[in-house]
Structures are given as structure tokens and as C-alpha cells.
């Protein structure tokens, strides 16, 4: 193992306290950024500025933010799903490009070929999702297989909901990762619903129990507690890098909006939503961050300004150019691998901060 790999392994036990107040500021910033961007997206959709529909992750922000925050820039995310915008934001996706993408305007993320959370900035080590769930779980296992083959101290992280665990690809992916003890962090967002279908109609055995049966370590965590998610994923990552095999982090949460902006979710028991509304991950973390000295209001002002500026600039951008329609079906040059240029804002990865 080379020196850089050893340095990555030297991250302390995540179950010990290891968040600085600056880390907490950044966690608060990204939680708020995700919600603010998505609230803005819903408004733009209702104004007819976003074509198709709009999908958000209200209530689940702590999972994608906390999980991505635990990764080094070397660890790809494959893939953030429609509830996981926070993972893109933690990695440093450009806000203006994001709104351009949402609105089908010229943009570097998808060039208008994709919409909603179907994007991934390959330079930041993020692979864009596809709609067939859980296809990207399998791809993440392939990334981890490559890391294992090359002896690299990296892990791949993948997100999926409880609904995605009913398809055969999920079985194939978990089984495959378990056989070779591949460095994969599986993040299960247990949000109660597969679109409208409750878990009683999805499975008889919970996916976390199935994962254990495959020989995969399972860590259960409150998915509305960003620090708990962060600690669980950091621990899972350590286990992966130590060669102890894949880990499934089961983050329990609740989808607070409909499947998309077109869905009023009338099929959800209002009492269930009320109960989870009281556990809102942002309201909870705002208190925690303030207790640790974070100037939460300053962050709120900065996030608001950044989102407003990004929306304004995106609205002045031309729509995607139909002259580019045929471009890029095939790669014409050299195949450029997934990049490692994304942000890893956790201070554990910042040599100067430790």
C-alpha cells in the first residue's frame, strides 16, 4: 500500500467525536442548500420553467448530506437518486449549472439530455442515476471490484430506497459484493414507500435482514440525524478500506412529499406524516449546529443569496440547442475515467485542519 492509501486509512474511528464546528457549519449549509434548491425547483416547476416533473427529497436530506460528507474525494458516489441531491451538493456541483440542467437549458452537466436529479458531474466522482432501480447499485459494485483489482484504498457508495430492493439486480449486486468482500457502502433509505406502495406490499423480509443473510454487515441508523448518518457511513467506509467487506447502512426516514411534484401523496396516512414532521432533519440539526457555535442565520443568508443568484443566472441562459441533438451518442476520443476532483469537505480529509 502506498503512502496516500495509508493516509486514507488513518481516518480515526468514526464512532468517536470527530466533527469540528466548521464541519457542523458545512453540514448545516448543505442540508439547507438541498432544501432551498429543491423548494426553488418546485416553484420553478409550478411556474412552468422546469419541464417534465420535479422530484425532491424533503425529509431525507440528512441521508445524502451525511453520507457524502463521510467520503473522501477518491470514493465515487454511484449514484445519488432523486432524494439525494445533497450528495451532489457536498461534492461541489455548481448551483447555476444545476438550475440550468433542471430547466433544460444549455449546461455542462447534461447538455439538456437529462432532467431533474438525473445527472452526475463525472469530474467530481459522481455517476448520474438511471430510472431503473436499483441498476446503479450493480454499477457501484463494479467500481468497487475495480478498486479491489487494482489494490486501491477506496470505496464506492450507492444509494437506494426500500422499493428498489425488490428487483433481482439488488440481489445480484449484494451477493456479488459479499462473495469478493468488495469495498461498497450500500445506503438504504428506508422511507416507507415505493412511490405509493407500502412495505406490506413490497416484501415479507426487510432488506436490512436480507443483507445480513447475504453476509453483509448492517448498521442501522436514524436517517433524520445527519451526524448519525455521517458516523455510520464513516465507519462503514473504514471497514471497507480495512478489507472487512461491504456494509449496508440502513437509514430510517420518511418521504415527506409525493413521489414527484405531480403527486399529492394522498395515499399516505396524515398522522404518519405529522409524526415525522416533528423529526424534521433540518429543524433538529439547526439546534445542534447552533449549540456548537455555528452562526446558523449567517449560513441561511449565504445559502439564500447563492441560490437566488444561481436561479437568476440560469434563467438568462439559452435553452439547449437542437443543433447539438446528435452529438455524443458515442465517445469519439479516449475514454476518460470517472474523475476524483470532487470536494471532500469533512475536516478529516483536510490535512491543515487536523
Amino acid at each position: 500500500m502506498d503512502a496516500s492509501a495509508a493516509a486514507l486509512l488513518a481516518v480515526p474511528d468514526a464512532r468517536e467525536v470527530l466533527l469540528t464546528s466548521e464541519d457542523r457549519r458545512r453540514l448545516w449549509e448543505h442540508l439547507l442548500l438541498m432544501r432551498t434548491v429543491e423548494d426553488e425547483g418546485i416553484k420553478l416547476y409550478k411556474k412552468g420553467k422546469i419541464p417534465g416533473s420535479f422530484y425532491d427529497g424533503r425529509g431525507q436530506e440528512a441521508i445524502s448530506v451525511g453520507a457524502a460528507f463521510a467520503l473522501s474525494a477518491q470514493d465515487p458516489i454511484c449514484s445519488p437518486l432523486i432524494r439525494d441531491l445533497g450528495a451532489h451538493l457536498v461534492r461541489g456541483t455548481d448551483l447555476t449549472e444545476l438550475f440550468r440542467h433542471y430547466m433544460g437549458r444549455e449546461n455542462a452537466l447534461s447538455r439538456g439530455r437529462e432532467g431533474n436529479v438525473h445527472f452526475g458531474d463525472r469530474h467530481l466522482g459522481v455517476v448520474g442515476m438511471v430510472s431503473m432501480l436499483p441498476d446503479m447499485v450493480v454499477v457501484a459494485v463494479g467500481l468497487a471490484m475495480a478498486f479491489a483489482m487494482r489494490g486501491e484504498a477506496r470505496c464506492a457508495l450507492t444509494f437506494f430506497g426500500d422499493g428498489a430492493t425488490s428487483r433481482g439486480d439488488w440481489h445480484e449486486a449484494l451477493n456479488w459484493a459479499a462473495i469478493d468482500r468488495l469495498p461498497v457502502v450500500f445506503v438504504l433509505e428506508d422511507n416507507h414507500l415505493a412511490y405509493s406502495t407500502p412495505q406490506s406490499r413490497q416484501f415479507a423480509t426487510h432488506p436490512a435482514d436480507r443483507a445480513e443473510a447475504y453476509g453483509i454487515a448492517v448498521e442501522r441508523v436514524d436517517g433524520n440525524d445527519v451526524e448519525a448518518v455521517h458516523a455510520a457511513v464513516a465507519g462503514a467506509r473504514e471497514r471497507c478500506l480495512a478489507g472487512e467487506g461491504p456494509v449496508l447502512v440502513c437509514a430510517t426516514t420518511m418521504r415527506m412529499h409525493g413521489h414527484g411534484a405531480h403527486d399529492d401523496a394522498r395515499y399516505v396516512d396524515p398522522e404518519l406524516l405529522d409524526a415525522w414532521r416533528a423529526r424534521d432533519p433540518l429543524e433538529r440539526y439547526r439546534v445542534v449546529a447552533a449549540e456548537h457555535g455555528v452562526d446558523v442565520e449567517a449560513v441561511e443568508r449565504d445559502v439564500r443569496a447563492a441560490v437566488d443568484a444561481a436561479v437568476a443566472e440560469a434563467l438568462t441562459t439559452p435553452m439547449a440547442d437542437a443543433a447539438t441533438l446528435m452529438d455524443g451518442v458515442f465517445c469519439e476520443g479516449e475514454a476518460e475515467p470517472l474523475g476524483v476532483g470532487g470536494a471532500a469537505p469533512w475536516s478529516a480529509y483536510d490535512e491543515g485542519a487536523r
Partner: protein
Amino acid sequence: MAPTTYLQAIGAGLREEMRRDERVFVMGEDVGAFGGAFKVTDGLVDEFGPARVRDTPIAEAAIVGTAVGAAIAGLRPVCEMQFADFVACGFDQLVNVAGKMHYRLGLAVPLVVRLPVGGGFSGGPFHSQNPEAWFMHAPGLKVVAPSTPADARGLLLSAIRDPNPVVFLEHKHLYRRVKEELPEVASPTPMTARIARAGDDLTIVAYGAMVHAALEAAEALGADGDGASVEVLDLRSLVPLDEEAILASVRKTSKVLVVDEANATCAAGAQVAALVADRAFEDLDGPVRRIATPDIPIPFSPPLEQAALPSASTIAEAARELLDY
């Protein structure tokens, strides 16, 4: 040097690319110590070890899907489907994940999926299919189909070096049936058509095993009393399709017979026929004719299978009719 079979040529191509480029690895069901169901990967594990010659579970979606992950991580996976028919289980990963990745996200997916295709030996409905049209219809995938040992090796090299997902159709009925002397140093075969036999009176467009049936038919027609001069165009690549080579041949001969071993509807041959009708209508002296397998699952019993698949004699018969038109 002894002539190399089509099967040995594929194995040689794999070995050469694995020696040349440490990023190249193979995976599939029983490809390691067993050497693959048809022995294409025989001996590779001895030279390259189990990490680069990976036996997998029976999990075609994961074979293709993990190959996508390995490819975007910078490796060059070559997957074997034990039979082409089984790729249906990995279809989604190939069509929706691999094929669309570059257009959607600018992320290249350099992988190869080898598909042992074709009938002729009582494989039955699940071991005889020619599924190339599924993938021709899916944007972002390249589809190649060699008919000779030299092209099997050369197209495999091209496929592995290509920055895109490539579906490599290797015809099982050619594995041990065709052989030739190969040059010591392999060179990539371009994804373009080749004139397998030059002629002036009629063009037969074919690929894979049907090239050999077409050549046999052409010989028979040339030896007939009228001594017809039949050209056989071997497509070699279906995506990209060498449209100019097809049109040039048709313009020269003015008559075209398109042969597919695949089921007729929406087959590669249908695309060729549409191309000719669209862009060479004025050059034709007869209707565009097609021969293909009827739209049935490939049956097991030899008399049924033989009645289903095109053969040199059915090709010759259709060609004769067209020559007389």
C-alpha cells in the same frame, strides 16, 4: 503454422489484448478453470490469474452492470455471456445504463460483451438466438459480427480498444468449422464491411455465419449454366453500419439479396433493405429481396430447425429468382 479456428482466434485476441493492456480482463460464467462453455477462454486463467479471468455467479445483470462500473473506473472489461440468449437477463444494464451513459453524462463506458450466437446444432429456443437487432435498436451500443477467424481476432481488438460499449457477436456454428492462417501480429479490423467475393450481377449482403452460406450459394450460382457473377458483402459491423459499402455494391450489381439468420422482423437485414430502398432505388433492376429466419423461437428437432434457418440452397434459390427478374 497450423490454421487457426474462429474459436481459437477469439481466444488469441483476448490473450493478446490482455498482454498488451493490463486494464483488460475477462469475466463470465465458468470462464476460469473450466475455460468457458465453448473453451474460448481456455488457459487464460493460467497466464493471467483469477483476478483477471473472473468466474462469476449466474448473474447476467451483474456481469454487465459490474462491467459498467469497472469500465468507468478505468478498466477494460470483456464479459462473456455463456449463450447470447442469456443477455436478455442483462439487457437493462446494457441498454439503459451502458448505452445511454455517454450521451446523458459524457461518461464513456469502454466494455465488450461477447455473445455466442446462432443455431444449427439443436440448441433449441434458448441456445440458438441471434439477438443483434435488440442492440442495434439501442442508441450508444456498437454491434459487430465477424465471419472469419482473422476478423474475429481483429474485430475483438477493435472492440476492446473502442471507448464505447461493444456487443461482439461470435457465431457458435463457426467456432470450429472455419479456420485460416493468421498473421503473427494481430491488427484491429475496422468496423466496416468487406467484399468477401466480388461479382457483377447480384449482391448478397450477409454477416456472421450467413456469409459462408452466401459464399456457398454464390459458388453454386457461378457454376450454373448461366455462370452468374455474385458479389457477397460481409457487413462485419452492424453498428456502425457501412452504408456506403452497401450502396456501392448495389449500384454496381443493381440487384440485392439480404440474408439474416435472425428472426425476420426488424432484423439487421430489414435495416439494410430499408437503406437500399431509400437511397439506391434508382439503381435497382429488381426488388430488394430478403431471406431470414421466420418469426418463431428456434426449434430443437433437426428437421424443424433446418426448415427455419436460411441455408446455401434457400439463398441460391432466392438469388436465382432475383437474377432472372
